[in-house]
């Protein structure tokens, strides 16, 4: 498996991380080194083995779908880079 600059650009886009054009070849090379290391996994015979979901046999606990902790908009917004009138504020999303 070899990652080219176009793939690196696509991955950066999917991850929503801006990568300058000039940095893509180095990034692709790093991906190749790491993925090359990961490819050792192809040697393993895992016939009949299910992918692990949880290391402990316990089932995830569930609770009723009700509000247990709410009504604190000021606290929720207190760390926002931009908040107005009780809402998070972002650049225009819809034209």
């Amino acid at each position, binding site marked *: 498996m070899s990652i080219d600059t176009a793939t690196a650009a696509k991955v950066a886009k999917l*991850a929503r991380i801006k990568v300058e054009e000039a940095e893509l070849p180095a990034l692709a090379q790093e991906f190749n080194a*790491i993925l090359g290391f990961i490819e050792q996994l192809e040697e393993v015979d*895992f016939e009949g083995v299910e992918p692990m979901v*949880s*290391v402990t046999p316990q089932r995830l606990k569930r609770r009723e779908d009700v509000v247990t902790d709410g009504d604190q908009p000021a606290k929720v917004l207190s760390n*926002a880079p931009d908040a107005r009138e009780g809402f998070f504020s972002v650049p*225009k999303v819809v034209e």
Partner: protein
Amino acid sequence: MSDLNKLTIAEARDALRKGDVTSVELTEACLTAIDAADALGAFAHKTPELAMDRAKAADARIKAGDAPDMCGIPVGIKDLFCTEGVASQAASRILEGFKPEYESTVSGKLRDAGSVMLGKLNMDEFAMGSSNETSVYGNAINPWRSGNSDAALTPGGSSGGSASAVAADLCLAATGTDTGGSIRQPAAFTGTVGLKPTYGRCSRWGIVAFASSLDQAGPMTKTVRDTAIMGAAMMGHDPKDSTSADLPVPDFEAMLTGDIKGNVIGIPKEYRMDGMPDEIEKLWAEGTAMLKDAGAEIRDISLPHTKYALPAYYVIAPAEASSNLARYDGVRFGYRAEMAPGDGITEMYEKTRAEGFGAEVKRRVMIGTYVLSAGFYDAYYNRARRVRALIKQDFDDVFAQGVDAILTPATPSAAFELGKEVSDPVEMYLNDVFTVTVNLAGLPGVAVPTGMDRNGLPLGLQLIGRPWEEGELLNTAYALESAAGFVEKPARWW
């Protein structure tokens, strides 16, 4: 009493109860030590006023006859734990200015038990790293030095600030977190004790998430006894974490008898790596002999899938990180990039994340994005999860054959020079080669200092235990610690 900051938790607890010392005095000693140790880069955010308030409250509590073990004990908290009203930024620029409105369950348990938070400790950004060189605060430095050299050494990562602070007596103990070895490797590099509990023992609620199926908080202390004391105070069921185990936490300290007669200690042949330094081989052989002399039965065992643990980890951890770190988008908290005219929300996300994350975090988020992307999910992510199941099975098999604990080296070398391994990510990943299997299998593991390398740097061994049996594991660690008699401290240069 002089040098109060050098006390262990057990010593300080006993002195507090007897009235020989106050928490205010202990706290002042630590604050003085911290202010004189800026060269170590261990503390990222100091909270002296909060510490003094808590110390006074602890003294009042002790006077009133209500003194849990941790009451009045000054500790450092890794910056990965959210602490109410105190900067908590996982050593990342993207959480610049973030002051949580809530307290993580683990730091809250320590606070409620009366312990005194001295401040927030340096770490690798988002706990990604094995050398504490990816922090936005700059490097944390190991208080130990190699021979006559004055080169700065790594305290290990990602809990490098915690390890450095405990080793240099800036606090009596500290919290750490361990996703692939981030408590045990820095403990080994600094001559301290670090426990990664069984997955689910400590609540992860309020701890900045890296890889949710692997992350686990634990204590970093000067002795095994202190690990038993502080560990018990950190553990326990939390309804806010759906993976938290609803099991009672035993009195670990009471289990430290040092009697391990008849226990079976497994020595896994797969941990004997090609090119392993002679001194690590020797350390391991000496540790094995110590446990044998203490009455344990030594048995050669096989964990055949060990070799595949690191590659599996470097699929699973980035995959989970890419998902967990999707929340850092400049909308709800932390850093937001400046916009250019005409920028929309996508540009805001992309610029914020490009400027807010450091190089290693970006690398792992993108690797995670890649291995989860359509067309590669089965080839990478599902394959790694299958290998993980096999690694867990290896451990289940040896425990089923009657092995009580497994002894391995903690790290492939002593602490290395800062800047030495940064250029090659894969080379850096190999630092976790002995610890990462434990996270994949969800088991408890503890690093104990047992010797020195030829340049006078501490070296540690790792003991791995059965799930939920931290008490038995710590008792074995206690026997090893007692036999090794490691008492060296770094010579002060800072």
